[in-house]
């Protein structure tokens, strides 16, 4: 089911014309499979091209929107973007509270927008969603994991942060420590797998339905896909905020 996006052929043909074929022979098989997963045919695999396209869209769209910023007479785009920012701020203040929205708005907003736009790519037949491959979602989950642990370590100091995992009672500490550490690492797995399976399953199911009956039947599935796109971005940032609030929690009794 190797359905490639519309940019896969042109970009790779251009790169092969410019740089020659990928040097697959000079690397060990594992390294070659890591860097050039499509073998000698492609320099850049499809999800990477789609991610670069998302970056390009952001790099073009947001500076243009910011240039048209007007305090007295906001246009439609500015209103919409202000709504999005206000929504993320209210989510952060609900989940984390007291002043968190200033600190965390940048990274949480980035996660939300990137995941949303990447998921929406899955609704177009000529594009592939970058979050529909395990690489992107595991990368996002790892970033979130490193980020919330770093926030917890910055807030509490390394020793006290690790002491968090000991649990409430001292004589159960070894057992609790193991369970808490495994649960902490399982967050990477759950974040990445949830996003990946939702988007990949949605994209594959829509593809199958569109192959069977292209005219009207895919529309409910695509509406579901749009809902899933919004929902999965929302869930990812909500869970990340919950994890960071748990990591930086001060138990004041």
């Amino acid at each position, binding site marked *: 089911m190797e359905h490639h996006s519309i940019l896969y052929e042109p970009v790779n043909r251009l790169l092969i014309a410019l740089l020659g074929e990928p040097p697959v022979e000079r690397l060990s098989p594992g390294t070659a499979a890591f860097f050039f997963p499509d073998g000698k045919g492609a320099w850049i695999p499809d999800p990477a091209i789609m991610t670069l396209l998302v970056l390009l869209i952001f790099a073009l769209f947001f500076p243009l929107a910011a240039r048209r910023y007007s305090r007295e007479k906001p246009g439609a785009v500015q209103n919409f973007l202000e709504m999005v920012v206000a929504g993320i701020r209210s989510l952060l203040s*609900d989940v984390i509270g007291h002043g968190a929205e200033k600190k965390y708005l940048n990274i949480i907003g980035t996660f939300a927008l990137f995941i949303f736009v990447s998921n929406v790519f899955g609704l177009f037949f000529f594009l592939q969603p970058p979050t529909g491959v395990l690489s992107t979602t595991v990368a996002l989950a790892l970033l979130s994991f490193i980020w919330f642990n770093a926030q917890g370590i910055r807030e509490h100091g390394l020793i006290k942060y690790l002491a968090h995992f000991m649990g409430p009672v001292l004589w159960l500490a070894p057992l609790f420590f193991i*369970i808490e550490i*495994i*649960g902490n690492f*399982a967050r990477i*797995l*759950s974040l990445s*797998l*949830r996003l990946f*399976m*939702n988007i990949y*399953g949605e994209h594959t199911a829509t593809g199958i339905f569109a192959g069977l009956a292209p005219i009207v039947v895919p529309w409910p599935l695509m509406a579901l896909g749009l809902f899933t796109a919004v*929902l*999965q971005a*929302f*869930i990812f940032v*909500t869970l990340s905020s919950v994890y960071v609030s748990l990591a930086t929690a001060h138990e004041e009794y």
Partner: protein
Amino acid sequence: MLKKTVLMTMVLVAFAAMPALGAQAEAGAAPAASGVKWGAIGAAFLLGIAAAAGAIGQGRATSAAADGISRNPGAAGAIRTMTIIGLALIESLVLYALLIAFLIRGL
């Protein structure tokens, strides 16, 4: 606690199923001997049970949400947010089962 147990089991099962991806070349001979595709049967049953359990959980969550909003319409916003998050988390457990079904369906 239950969710952590489920997650740990998923991790263990996923790691146990990983060699299946590498061993696909030799494993192709095993089911052909008796002709029974245990992988496909297992995947089908797994997904049926997972979807049933997920549907029961999500039905309870939705009905509790409807009750809550009908008792206290002012809290509709907060209840709606919590319901959506809860439904997505239940759904993610069903999706872990779908992933395992993908991994074992060829065996």
